[in-house]
């Protein structure tokens, strides 16, 4: 049963992608989309439950342990929320000719292909398959980024696909090096690329080559994650994609890439001890947080702002991993979930806002609370959450990250981190406050928004708030086990 779940999860969206190609009517498309996403969500929950109950599941190239389940659950939740949101978002988009009706099914097909590849990424036990799936996500999402077809979209898409493909190739190179080390250690055939097998013998791997392999993987997958200084494509792509896709890109995709890094982090820890990989993650995390700051402060484009925030927050995750120890790793994994949920929520708000004001220039967006109270409130809540203020979820994970850093004695890193967080907080609250309050311009669309986007936002908002004040024992157990796995 569990084994079939592994195949089922990617298969459902993949088949959906094929079927929608044959459907024309927008209404039916939307319904199929919603159904498939909910199915994915339920399957993810089922898988998570079974893994929590009976431990890791494997079959062939696929496998799921606590770590991957964390990511699967995140992807499932976001996919469901995105579909709910799309229900009400799409008609308005069609009305504003953002998407032509003739290409609608292509859109849905691509989205589901994208989802399928993401699920495959986090479910693959085979490092090669992981690479293949990740390249798949690049290809599908690149088309989505360029979906609008105007020059900006295409430019962003080109930068995205080229830069990330380069990164991914480095990732492949690193994978091969580790594979070589593994093959050297246990001259095996296909199983040599199996993560489980490699992790099992990690201690016998040659440290030198694994170290180089990890560097390649970190830079390579790090490009896809959006760690500075390989992050530059990210604001372009995330700002040009249609908002639901942006939510998936920022919320889920970069986390899948992180998943890859985490896998190799475990292997590297096994082979060369915690030192090199931890230090590298710490360095890149810190650089990301620092680099993101000025771009957040002096930013005009709403969605680019969010893009740079993704850079900052993957930096925070990397910091957590780099600080290491149970606390740091736990914090990093928790932050993956928290940031995914929050960022998707804020992208939802951004989509609604942009279609109301017909602009993404934040200087032109005023008084959102007045014309869309719920969205405005969500904007503020999301902003505060992103800034790490209780009672929202990110506060908890950031608190833990700081604690891990102080526990590890990285006072300087923590100092820089907190300074940057404070500055970023100023910038973010400034932007959000300016957009939420004040008097809305005359041209703004004051029509009450449809139900489904609000439901989508409310869903994520609820999760955001809940995780801020209460971590369910199930999730806690899952994260703890995942931490053990990551630490090897």
């Amino acid at each position: 049963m569990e084994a079939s779940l592994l195949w089922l999860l990617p298969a459902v969206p993949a088949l959906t992608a094929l079927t929608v190609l044959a459907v024309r009517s927008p209404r039916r498309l939307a319904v199929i989309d919603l159904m498939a996403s909910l199915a994915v969500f339920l399957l993810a929950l089922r898988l998570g439950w079974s893994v929590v109950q009976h431990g890791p599941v494997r079959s062939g190239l696929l496998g799921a342990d606590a770590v991957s389940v964390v990511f699967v659950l995140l992807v499932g939740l976001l996919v469901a929320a995105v579909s709910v949101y799309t229900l009400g978002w799409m008609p308005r988009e069609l009305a504003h000719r953002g998407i032509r009706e003739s290409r609608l099914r292509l859109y849905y097909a691509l989205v589901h292909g994208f989802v399928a590849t993401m699920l495959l990424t986090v479910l693959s036990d085979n490092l090669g398959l992981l690479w293949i799936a990740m390249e798949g996500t690049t290809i599908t999402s690149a088309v989505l980024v360029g979906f609008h077809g105007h020059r900006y979209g295409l430019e962003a898409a080109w930068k995205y696909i080229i830069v990330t493909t380069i990164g991914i190739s480095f990732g492949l190179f690193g994978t091969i090096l580790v594979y070589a080390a593994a093959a050297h250690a246990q001259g095996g055939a296909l199983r040599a690329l199996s993560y489980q097998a490699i992790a099992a013998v990690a201690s016998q791997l040659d440290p030198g080559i694994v170290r180089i392999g990890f560097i390649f993987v970190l830079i390579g997958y790090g490009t896809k994650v959006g760690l500075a200084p390989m992050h530059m494509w990210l604001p372009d792509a995330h700002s040009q994609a249609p908002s639901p896709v942006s939510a998936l890109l920022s919320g889920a995709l970069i986390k899948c890439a992180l998943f890859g890094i985490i896998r190799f982090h475990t292997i590297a820890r096994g082979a060369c001890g915690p030192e090199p990989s931890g230090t590298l993650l710490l360095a890149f995390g810190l650089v990301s947080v620092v680099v993101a700051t000025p771009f957040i402060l002096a930013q005009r484009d709403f969605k680019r702002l969010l893009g740079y925030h993704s850079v900052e927050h993957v930096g925070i995750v990397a910091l957590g991993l780099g600080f290491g120890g149970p606390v740091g790793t736990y914090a990093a994994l928790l932050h993956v979930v928290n940031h995914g949920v929050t960022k998707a929520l804020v992208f939802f708000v951004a989509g609604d806002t942009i279609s109301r004001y017909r602009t993404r220039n934040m200087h032109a967006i005023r008084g959102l609370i007045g014309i869309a109270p719920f969205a405005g409130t969500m904007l503020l809540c999301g902003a505060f959450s992103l800034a790490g203020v209780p009672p929202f979820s990110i506060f908890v994970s950031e608190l833990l990250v700081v604690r891990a850093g102080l526990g590890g004695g990285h006072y300087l890193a923590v100092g820089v981190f907190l300074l940057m967080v404070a500055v970023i907080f100023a910038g973010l609250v400034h932007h959000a406050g300016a957009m939420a309050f004040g008097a809305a311009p005359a041209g703004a669309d004051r029509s009450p928004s449809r139900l489904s986007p609000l439901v989508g936002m409310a869903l994520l908002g609820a999760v955001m708030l809940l995780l801020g004040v209460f971590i369910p024992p199930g999730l806690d157990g899952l994260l703890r086990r995942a931490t053990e796995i990551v630490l090897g």
Partner: protein
Amino acid sequence: MSSPLATALIDYLGALLLFTMIVILGSSQLYRTIYAVAAQSAFLAAAAAVLAIATRNLDLWVIAGITIVVKAVLLPWLLIGVVRRIGVKREIEPVVPTLLTLAIAAGTVVLSFQLAASLGAVRQTVTGNALPVGVALTLLGVLVMASRKTALAQMVGLFACENGIFFTAIAVSQGMPLIIEIGVLLDVVLGALVMGIFVLRVRSSVDADIADLSRLRA
């Protein structure tokens, strides 16, 4: 065929691969770079074949075959097709002056050899100089992409870079598992297709080279 001979052959092929890469780096002619990358892929296939003979590994034969078909024929053909479609001017004007590029390339190669030298034990597993050559090829491929203005040149660089990876993969441990190899190639082809589409669409909508667009910044 005995292993030392195979090692020697692999080394020669590695040298050839590097040579072709340098040709790609140095030449300002789009067609020439495309032919060069095709040749490079052919050498790669040859390397695979050599190892296949040496190790009597059937998978490697398959890989060699696929490489010939896909990388030496299909992809170059696709590139040339695109070039014909958009009638891009043959000259590639570099972003970085070619000489400087070559200098950087030299440095990169040295670095990669040094790096490989620093790994003692592992080098036995790798056949000959495959590891440093592979690293060098990969990095140089990216260097090409960074230093060329037109999108097609960047695609060429990307393929060259992947050749480097494949070479390493083959040399390091008789190739990755077959289906993985195939999957990777599949991705490469898909990616190439998508990129081609992008190039064409930009040409048709705004008459510019997609690699030249730089409106999105900061």
